[in-house]
């Protein structure tokens, strides 16, 4: 080993044979200090996990002792939960809204990306993209506001159009219809996220070799033919991975979205698991049951994520984690 290399190794403080762990840690103390922000993760992500124990207790808010002195009830909360109709209904709503959202936002994001990719006038493409990002950057409160106004039975544009076209004879209160709440939730997501989501596909499309399109031109392939024969197959890995990943998030329907979009009349179809947890905690102060539900939700989500990660690994030989 030359002197130069030795200086380099010691300068880099890299692990060397014969270095004991404490010595190594001391050598890298500056890096350890720079790692200190993990404290935030401990305090705000991991410590709250202690709260899971109240799922196995009959937690009383007014109780004066420590958390461990609360009454332990084992799995009682879980058993009681699984027997409830409202639990099954909210599970059904979560799955329903989740699936519908994935299908719709998948299709429309991809469609938007493909169509944007076909625009050859660059200023037009840029303008459309910039506009399509806007909903992503506003809060769900603002989005819900706009959606309520648009679908309002009083002068809402949708009702007005339908009335003028003679499709309906009197205004419909769309946001109060339990039967279409899933659709409203899914299409709100499409409206809010498609433009932004298209970025990933468009980035994948820039990697396609232009020679492919040129030879397709020579063969006389039309535009639509080229989309199906070149563009879509070329970005297939991206499509698959994003699909698999979104299945992992199936149960995380998006609490804020549902919270602001639901109305008292759409309780039946608009109560998802997350909303149900919120109701437990803040409406009825049933902390233990809510925590039990949180655990159930987390476990199912983790299982889904692990499964989808395996699936992604199978698809391209490389996982996400």
């Amino acid at each position: 080993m030359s002197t130069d290399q030795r200086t380099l190794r010691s300068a880099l403080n890299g692990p060397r044979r014969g270095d004991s762990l404490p010595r190594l840690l001391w050598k890298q103390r500056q890096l350890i200090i720079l790692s200190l922000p993990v404290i935030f993760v401990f305090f705000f992500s991991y410590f709250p996990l202690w709260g899971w124990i109240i799922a196995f207790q009959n937690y009383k808010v007014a109780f004066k002792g420590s958390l461990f002195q609360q009454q332990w009830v084992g799995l009682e909360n879980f058993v009681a939960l699984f027997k409830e109709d409202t639990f099954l209904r909210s599970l059904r709503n979560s799955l329903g809204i989740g699936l519908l959202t994935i299908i719709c936002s998948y299709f429309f994001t991809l469609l938007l990306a493909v169509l944007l990719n076909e625009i050859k006038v660059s200023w037009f493409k840029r303008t459309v993209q910039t506009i399509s990002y806007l909903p992503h950057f506003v809060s769900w409160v603002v989005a819900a506001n706009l959606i309520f106004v648009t679908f309002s039975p009083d002068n809402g544009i949708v009702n007005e159009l339908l009335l003028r076209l003679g499709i309906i004879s009197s205004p419909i209160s769309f946001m109060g219809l339990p039967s279409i709440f899933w659709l409203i939730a899914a299409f709100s997501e499409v409206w809010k996220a498609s433009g932004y989501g298209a970025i990933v596909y468009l980035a994948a499309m820039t990697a396609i070799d232009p020679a492919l399109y040129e030879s397709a031109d020579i063969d006389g392939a039309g535009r639509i033919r080229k989309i199906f024969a070149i563009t879509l197959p070329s970005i297939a890995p991206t499509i698959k991975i994003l699909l698999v990943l979104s299945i992992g998030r199936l149960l995380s329907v998006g609490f804020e979205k549902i919270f602001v979009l639901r109305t008292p009349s759409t309780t039946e179809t608009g109560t998802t698991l997350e909303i149900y947890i919120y109701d437990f905690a803040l409406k009825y102060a049933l902390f233990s049951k809510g925590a039990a539900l949180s655990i159930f939700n987390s476990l199912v989500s983790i299982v889904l994520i692990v499964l989808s990660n395996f699936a992604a690994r199978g698809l391209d030989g490389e996982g996400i984690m």
Partner: protein
Amino acid sequence: MTTKLTSAPKNTMLSTKTENLIFDSLNALAMLFVCVLTLYPFINTMAVSFNDSIDAVRGGIYLWPRMFSLKSYETILIKTSSIPTSAMISATRAILGTGLAIPMSMMLAFVMTRRDYVLRGVVTKLVLFTMYVSGGLIPTFLTFRMYGLMNNFLVYILPTTISAFNVLVMRSFIDGLPFELTESAKIDGASEYRILFTIIFPLSLPVLATIGLFVAVSQWNMWFDTMLYCSSAKGLSTLQYELKKVLDSASSMAGDTVSAEAAASSASEGQSGRVTTQTIRAAMTVISVVPIACIYPFLQKYFVKGMTLGAVKG
């Protein structure tokens, strides 16, 4: 192009041209439709917000106010204090939150790229797992209450400081910088702090702009933490939460005439003109969207890059 012209038979070429024309026109129409669908609700809300309240109840306002009036803005910005105060809180949390999140995430991202660092794997896993494990609403609420974060401004900025996604995006970016920079600086005797803050930091401005935008926008848009932790502290209310309250109070969605006091929750008494929740709500929406709409178009090239980086590494 020339190859195509010479090799393709004439009739196919013509039909290809026609097909192209039809496709392009339909595509342009579809894209215009997307723009209208996206923008119309915003423009309509703006038109309503600048319209006279009583007149707006009649409906029929689409892209432009029919009877121009600034009364709604006057009501929420001058006659009441709750909206300006909450907007200040929102802006403060956006600024402080970003100011805290950027250096903290940067530090973690930096040590995660150092292959020679013994604790690299531990730190990376600790940060990554937060994407998959969450205590859930109630345990988190109880823990934060235990920390004394109820009705405390810190609840806005501390818990969101480290986001796994942001750190990962930064890590991918720093990974792309030549390692020789760090190496040669080390040989010259620079400390790790110096390497991070005088070499890596200035080179990472594109990704910092991206993450800065993400953090600032999400801070500005948050309302749920206000509702959960700070709903009884009037001075800590955020703009989005005020908007949420107005949205709730106007659940009927009709242009119901109410006095300003009811609409903007703490309006002063005894006003002459009446405003409705409809226009108040519209004006508040406009106020909360305008800052974002003014900023994001200019940072576009950065966040597009950031999104792509994030997508590659998951």
